[in-house]
């Protein structure tokens, strides 16, 4: 399997208001990160025959693939089997990884395929489409006045409890997303793949990835807003 570079445009003329995370080598800005992620470094060393990179590479991707599959399929046994099958395939075809910088997209592409085989139906055929109309807030709904009600993780006195509740609600909301949206949200917002990488993993255009990501995020926000509203007096 030979992969193209995630973003051949290299367009640096984008604005970056951003939702950035402090993880090295990753960003939400849709561009290749300037800093090399640990996974890229391990892949580079493995291609050079460095056995010291084997264990961290395996442990990192076993965990990432397990999580991705677990959130996609909600079956622990399936997730562990897919993670294992993915790693076997990765190493069996490691000589086909032409560019270590592409390792995350390459591994997740393999994982996605095993996930599909496990589920025996395509993530490319969503059960339903999410329309912007249904995600647009109404004039009297939670709508446009929600800001500040989603808990800031660090600022609330009940932060731990709220975090647990919010995490539970997020998992529930994610599981209710159609698969095609769920996979995009997971790859972009959880695993921090770029738009280009997610497009390669899912065999979609970048425009479709952006559209599904936005609608998926809006659906999660809407679900979260309802939860917070129902909680009423918590003041979050």
């Amino acid at each position, binding site marked *: 399997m030979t992969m193209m570079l995630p973003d051949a445009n290299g367009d640096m*003329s*984008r*604005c*970056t*208001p*951003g*939702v950035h*995370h402090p993880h090295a080598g990753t960003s*939400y*800005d*849709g*561009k290749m990160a300037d800093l090399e992620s640990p996974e890229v470094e391990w892949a580079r060393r493995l*291609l*050079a*025959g460095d056995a010291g990179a*084997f264990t961290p590479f*395996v442990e990192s991707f*076993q*965990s990432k693939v*397990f*999580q991705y599959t*677990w*959130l996609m399929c909600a079956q622990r046994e399936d*997730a*562990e089997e897919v*993670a*294992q099958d993915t*790693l*076997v395939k990765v*190493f*069996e*075809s*490691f*000589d086909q990884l032409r560019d270590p910088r592409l390792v995350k997209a390459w591994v997740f592409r393999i994982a996605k395929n095993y996930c599909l085989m496990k589920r025996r139906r395509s993530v490319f055929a969503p059960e339903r489409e999410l329309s912007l109309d249904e995600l*647009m807030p109404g*004039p009297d709904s939670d*709508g*446009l*006045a*929600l*800001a*500040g009600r*989603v*808990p*800031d*993780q660090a600022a609330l006195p009940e932060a731990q409890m709220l*975090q647990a509740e*919010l*995490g539970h609600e*997020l*998992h529930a909301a994610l599981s209710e997303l159609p698969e095609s949206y769920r996979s995009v949200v997971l790859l972009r*917002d*959880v695993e921090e793949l770029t738009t280009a990488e997610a497009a390669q993993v899912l065999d979609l255009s970048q425009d479709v990835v952006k559209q599904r*990501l*936005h609608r998926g*995020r*809006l659906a*999660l*926000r809407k679900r*979260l807003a309802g939860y917070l509203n129902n909680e009423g007096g918590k003041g979050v």
Partner: protein
Amino acid sequence: MKNSEPERPAHGPADASCVEVFERLSEYLDGELTPADCAHIEEHIRDCPPCVAFLESLRSCIRASHSLLAEHPASRPLPEDVCEKLKAAWQAALQRLGA
């Protein structure tokens, strides 16, 4: 959309310019808009509290998704025979590469 326009109608979901911004907020947050499109959105939200509120709520949800969903659940360690299989496959791949 300047503050000097007192006759401006109320913003909100029925406002076409708000809908236009609403449709592109993820791209805005991801820094995937051109500078011109970015400036257009920023000009709008500078004077549109409902859109600012929605933008902040979306940003909070994205951050929550990352921080809460990215807490990797524990998976069982790979069995020793699987690890050996992976190493053997890696060595074979290196041989094919001529490393």
